[in-house]
């Protein structure tokens, strides 16, 4: 799934500052009689019910049944499907890989994105051109970017060529064919592709910091590092929350790049929850297993989103 879709989940994290005080505007409204017809919500709610709510509820329900998508008759099987998921090696590997990939990509992408933002937010004359270049991979089709990277990382690809050229030929190897490096190679692609997105969000945060605050810190004798650590970083908290949420959810749903770069292999080394859900349903035809895995994925996302939100909220207050 492309990032902007993943993105779309982030702003739940926003503080409700945008909300107008309901009392005041409510009074004005009644007085003058601006009338917003209730039926304006009907098309949105209808398509949302049809595409999201009803099938999601059915998915949760069917995870406790033997529904196979074809027979209209099904019966409850209790927790059998979940037992199957948690005793399945591929599914367990997929869960572990997905958590590792999401964590590694979140950390790396945020560090790189923040550094890029700090660099680009300077007096550098080329800063606008640099911004455009660092952001360009974000709009690229993730599947296509995955194919390009799988070529660059192949045994005779550009990455190994470069290593040999600088005398590090000993490090050159089949990055995607080695179960120990394949997952991190995918993380590297994700960081290349989406750091520009984190950069743009951090940049918006940096530019919202008033110059006087930084001047005051300088006058108080703060060095560059302590100014960053004690003044800039705390003021970037909102951007951190959004970026971490975006990366985390995008990583947990990872599908496209894995399909392009490894197809989940070698073995199960890069299998993710999304690829496992897809394969169990459409290669193996095991709908109950696939649905139970999707419910597990939903729960994992909900837990991590809540934990992350709580943690970052506490830091603010």
């Amino acid at each position, binding site marked *: *799934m492309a990032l*902007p*879709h993943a993105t*779309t*989940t982030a*702003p*739940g994290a*926003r503080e409700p500052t*945008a*909300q107008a005080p*309901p009392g005041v*505007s409510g009074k004005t409204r009644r007085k003058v*009689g*601006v009338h*917003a*017809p*209730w039926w*304006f*919500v009907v098309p949105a709610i209808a*398509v*949302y019910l049809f*595409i999201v709510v009803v*099938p*999601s509820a059915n*998915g949760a329900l*069917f995870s406790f049944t033997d529904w196979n*998508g074809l027979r209209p008759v099904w019966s409850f099987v209790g927790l059998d499907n979940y037992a199957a998921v948690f005793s399945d090696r591929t599914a367990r590997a997929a869960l572990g890989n997905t958590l590792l990939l999401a964590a590694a990509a979140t950390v790396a992408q945020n560090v790189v994105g923040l550094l890029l933002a700090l*660099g*680009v937010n*300077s*007096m*550098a*004359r*080329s800063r606008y051109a640099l911004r*455009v*270049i*660092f*952001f*360009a*991979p974000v*709009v*690229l*089709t*993730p*599947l*296509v970017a995955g194919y*390009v*990277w799988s*070529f660059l990382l192949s045994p005779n690809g550009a990455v190994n060529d470069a290593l040999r050229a600088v005398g590090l030929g000993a490090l050159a190897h089949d990055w995607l064919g080695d179960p120990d490096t394949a997952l991190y190679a995918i993380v590297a692609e994700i960081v*290349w592709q989406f750091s520009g997105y984190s950069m743009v969000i951090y940049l*918006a945060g940096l530019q919202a910091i008033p*110059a006087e605050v930084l001047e005051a810190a300088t006058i108080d004798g703060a060095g560059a590092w302590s100014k960053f650590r004690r003044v800039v970083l705390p003021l970037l908290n909102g951007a951190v929350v959004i970026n971490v949420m975006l990366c985390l959810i995008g990583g947990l*749903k990872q599908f*496209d790049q894995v*399909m392009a770069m490894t197809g989940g292999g070698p073995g199960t080394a890069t299998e993710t929850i999304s690829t496992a*859900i*897809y394969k169990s349903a459409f290669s193996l035809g095991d709908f109950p297993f696939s649905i139970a895995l999707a*419910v597990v*994925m*939903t729960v994992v996302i909900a837990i991590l989103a809540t934990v992350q939100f709580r943690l970052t909220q506490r830091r603010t207050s």
Partner: protein
Amino acid sequence: MHARYTWRTLSREATLILLALLFLVPLVGLLNVSLKPQDSQTSALALEFPPTLGNYAQAWTQANLDAALANSFAITAVSVVLIIAFSAMAAYPLARVTRGWSRYAFYFVIGGLLIPGQLALLPLYATMRDLGLLGSLWSVILINVGQQMPFSVFLYTMFLRELPLDYEEAALLDGCGPVRSFVTVVFPLLRPVTGTVVILNAVGIWNEFFTPLLYLGGSDNTTSPVAIYGFVSQYVSQWPLIFAGLVISVIPILVVYFALQKHIIKGFAGGLKG
């Protein structure tokens, strides 16, 4: 932050430019390899003379990219128009009506932000199959619209809550009904959000792989990423040919990006500020 251009700024700028060149390597490699003869064994960044456009001609016909690009355009355009119409409309009463149902309806819709599409996947697939929509662009369009409601409704509602009532009141006093006042007065004022909604959704839908793979894969009606997926599995390791196909498939989005980069970057950053 820094008032003057100093030596430190210069060294920082030089580092950044080097990094930018590194960032460009995959893109340059993509273009360079696509111009090589098909039996080429040289490195991704090594130039080879004379460059050939033969891969492009072959990829264009064999990957059926013309039809696939047309489908991608159609799906993106129709989905984005419907997303804007439905979510802007829904946001109007959700932001303006203060009674309870409006608040609950708002939470009900944005609750969808936390539900991954995978949960609905198989029941939805069965429904689309029973409706005979597998292989039809409408299945993908409907799914795009439904899945994007929570985020787009959220953006429009937050923006509308900050928008003063003055204009609508003026329209009302001029004898404008609620529908006409929404279309002619309110909707044009929503332009900043509409820009963000268009950019985020258009880029996302254009690049999307999973949903079209599921609903259009194997049919004659594929989108560009799905066509590329099939093309790559057919011509494994014939990199120059594959890369020509990849270049063709990303040219539209890259052209739009470089033409509108300021707006697009702002759109991505703005989606988060509301």
